[in-house]
């Protein structure tokens, strides 16, 4: 492993653009996410050649072809597994996984949870559009029950995943939610995701304007956004609303929406991204916006934990074995401990 201080050659956002024509549908939320990633990555103090984007299959998985870094567009659901092998053996690389709700939560669900459990130091951008776009409009594991699609003309009967609840369940160490239409928040979260040592999981609400247009409208439209969303900031009270007049309190173990005219801001729930119990409550705040008295949908960084990464432990064992036994001697291996000579 490199120990010498590395020299960084700065690069611009423009240098991250490839010669490939971007092929997403006009108006797709992916454009904004690509733009924010290309804006943030040059600010991270990385050399361009040490960056690798790995994707699976789906609309979002075209992403690596548009990033002038190393990249792999792999097979459905397996980007997480491929990234695991790369990161274990090349821990110095900055590895980014681009995936979607179908790719990571359906066909790649197994690798997804094991990546989180092992806590490889990679960044996962989970584009959630609650639909299968590339295969032209079937429901996904995050589509709401009753969703009418080509494969569910009478409505889907599946109960959907709450992606971040899955991530918390798999012991993710960086759990965040952002949206394609809020570039400032998205960039903030992406930067923090990169800085976190461990698997950083960023769920990004992404509008599929062809097959599931408006799925997140209530969270993204100016007229409703302020009342329907809450951006959690570490150390700050959980306040939301167009007039910043609403907040969350914890009544025992029960979160409650309160009006700031009745409760002082000092008594509100102060967001602590190191608090696993409260993070579990925040990610579980997953109300149907049409329900009377529902909670706002939280965004931001919900949970951060410092835990050893897989590749650190893996590389440490390789080093320890060499320290203890010396560099392996092939001749000693080939002969083993019991040999005899035939004259």
């Amino acid at each position, binding site marked *: 492993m490199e120990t010498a201080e590395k020299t960084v050659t700065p690069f611009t956002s423009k240098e991250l653009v490839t010669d490939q024509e971007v092929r997403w549908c006009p108006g797709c939320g992916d454009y904004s996410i690509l733009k924010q990633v290309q804006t943030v990555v040059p600010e991270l103090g990385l050399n361009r050649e040490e960056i690798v984007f790995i994707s699976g299959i789906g609309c979002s998985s075209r992403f690596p072809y548009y990033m002038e870094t190393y990249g792999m567009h792999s097979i459905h659901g397996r980007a997480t597994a491929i990234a695991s092998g790369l990161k274990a053996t*090349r821990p110095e690389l900055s590895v980014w996984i681009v995936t979607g709700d179908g790719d990571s939560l359906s066909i790649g669900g197994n690798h997804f949870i094991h990546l989180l459990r092992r806590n490889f130091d990679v960044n996962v951008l989970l584009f959630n559009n609650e639909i299968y776009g590339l295969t032209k409009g079937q429901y996904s594991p995050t589509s709401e029950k009753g969703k009418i699609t080509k494969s569910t003309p009478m409505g889907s009967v599946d109960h959907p995943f709450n992606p971040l609840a899955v991530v918390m369940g798999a012991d993710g160490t960086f759990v965040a939610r952002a949206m394609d239409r809020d570039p400032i928040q998205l960039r903030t979260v992406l930067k923090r995701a990169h800085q976190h040592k461990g698997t950083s999981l960023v769920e990004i609400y992404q509008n599929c304007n062809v097959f599931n247009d408006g799925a997140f409208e209530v969270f993204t439209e100016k007229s409703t956004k302020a009342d329907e969303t809450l951006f959690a900031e570490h150390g700050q009270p959980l306040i939301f609303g167009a007039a910043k007049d609403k907040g969350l309190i914890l009544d025992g173990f029960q979160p409650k929406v309160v009006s700031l005219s009745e409760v002082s801001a000092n008594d509100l729930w102060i967001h602590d991204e190191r608090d696993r119990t409260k993070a579990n409550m925040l990610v579980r705040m997953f109300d149907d916006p049409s329900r009377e008295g529902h909670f706002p949908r939280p965004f931001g960084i919900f949970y951060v934990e410092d835990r050893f990464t897989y590749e650190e432990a893996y590389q440490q064992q390789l080093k320890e074995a060499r320290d203890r036994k010396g560099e392996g001697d092939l001749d000693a291996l080939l002969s*083993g401990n*019991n*040999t005899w000579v035939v004259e």
Partner: protein
Amino acid sequence: MENNTLLATEATILFAGDSGDGIQLTGDQFTNTTALYGNDLSTFPNFPAEIRAPQGTLAGVSGFQIKFGSTEVFTPGDRCDMLVVMNAAALKANLKQLKPGGIIIANTEGFDAKNLRLARYAEGVNPLEDGSLETYKLFKIDVTRLTKATLEGSGLGTKEIDRTKNMFVLGFIYWIYNRSLDTTIRFIEQKFAKRPEIVEANIKTLKAGYNYGDTSETFMQRVEIRPAQIAPGRYRNINGNPATAMGLIAAAKKSGLNLFLGSYPITPASDILHELSKYKHFGVGTFQAEDEIAAICAAIGASFGGSLAVTTSSGPGIALKTEAIGLAIMLELPLVIVNVQRGGPSTGLPTKTEQADLLQAVYGRNGEAPLPVIAAKSPADCFFAAFEACRIAIEHRTPVFFLSDGYLANGAEPWRFPSAADLPEIKPNILNSAPAEGEKFLPYRRDEKLARPWAVPGVKGLEHRIGGLEKEHETGNISYDPENHEFMVKLRAERVEKVADYIGPQTLDQGPEKGKLLVLGWGSTYGAIKTAVKTALDEGYSVAHAHVRYIHPFPKNLESVLRNYDHVLIPEMNNGQLVRIIRDRFLIPAEGFSKIKGIPFTAEELLTKIKTLA
């Protein structure tokens, strides 16, 4: 040795007992001692299907067969000269393996009423007492009682004492063949280093077994089998799975790459994972993945990063990896896929051997997806075949199938191992600099082997994207162009065929260059075919033996070799797979010969068949 010692050229012993009786350990110890003594040998462990089947039942019988001799030995023997049975079930399951007039050594305690019932002998029937074994030489020993007597006052519990009874048997067999106890004593001292009382008990029992031969009047004759006259050199004993692991490590060393194994436990391949995980000081990283798919995908990721990447599995696991193998073919990255074949289809016969995944290896993917396929022919050959698979994978930038099977994996033979210096260097040629100013890096431009550059992340100026979508020639950009697709499909086939330029010609193992019959084998049938053809040649038949290591692509001269004979016979432990490929490829009327019983061919079966054609 005493004068009443019989001099023999070879012997086959089958140790059988309950899976808890330590049969495999007994067999391994006898093998190591026999190997060190200088006999040539071949072994065949036969595991019960269940991990711990109920004690005393037929399902729980574990077997270990060894053939050893003062002449060359190529198979673990068709039938055995001596059957050592620890209980009634072991006798019942294996008696048919014993030669007429052969020796049975039976532990009488394993033939009590309960054991007889569990072995499904009729009420009141005890084969040791009813005369049904009178055509054999039967030796009854109350091993349990003798072991107890030996360890009386040792302070050990009944269970612990009982566990040493295999040492009594082993000691007794050592006496018969006049073998030194040293190797086994050393083994016991190492294995139980933390429990001196167990070391002492095992050694005491081992010696008691040996002395029992001397002092009791039970046995008539000791047997002497002198060291074999085999090629001079330094030897060790080796099983197929460890040999495979060593071949992979050696290839990593000779290529200067780190070895990465992505694997998921599966019988009978798991031992390669266990073995490789011991060698971290060789820079060997092992990743026990969450499933078979993750195992190969992690290997692909490691290969992209510049490691020598390997995934190991068996048939059902290989099926799961199929899509990722296709990806590796498109990415044109080095990858070795080890299939330790077992009985199929589906879960099939996990602990039994078969060669039925050949067509899966050669053809079993979506689209036109060719890759090189290499098969090992013996436990020691697993080393060379695995090394060769790595060489081709690295230098030709392609996934390579390495086929072993359960028989090779667990079988053992003496191995005149090479020195590290004897092994060829492997040249990875990983690109370490950007193209000249003004030139564009073309990730799919090819060298004389038609291999594309191996450009790993971290090198400035070589940033590029690869993926599973069809590639444009040279640029590697996504391309749906019809002409390009056809061109690329043919190019991928051509570059695999190109491997044939870098392998040796097909040679004959033995027999005349022209004649009536050629027996063409692949994989673990080697020993049985070799033995059968040798006998047929001795008897004057016109027969030769060729064994193919490179199944895809074939050596360039294979067709001309085949056409030198009136008949080509292809014995396989499957329903006829190589024979289909040979017929398809060369339009010759090769004849298949199948055995699909989860056990290897016997030389006798093959000889009978050979005589009908030669």
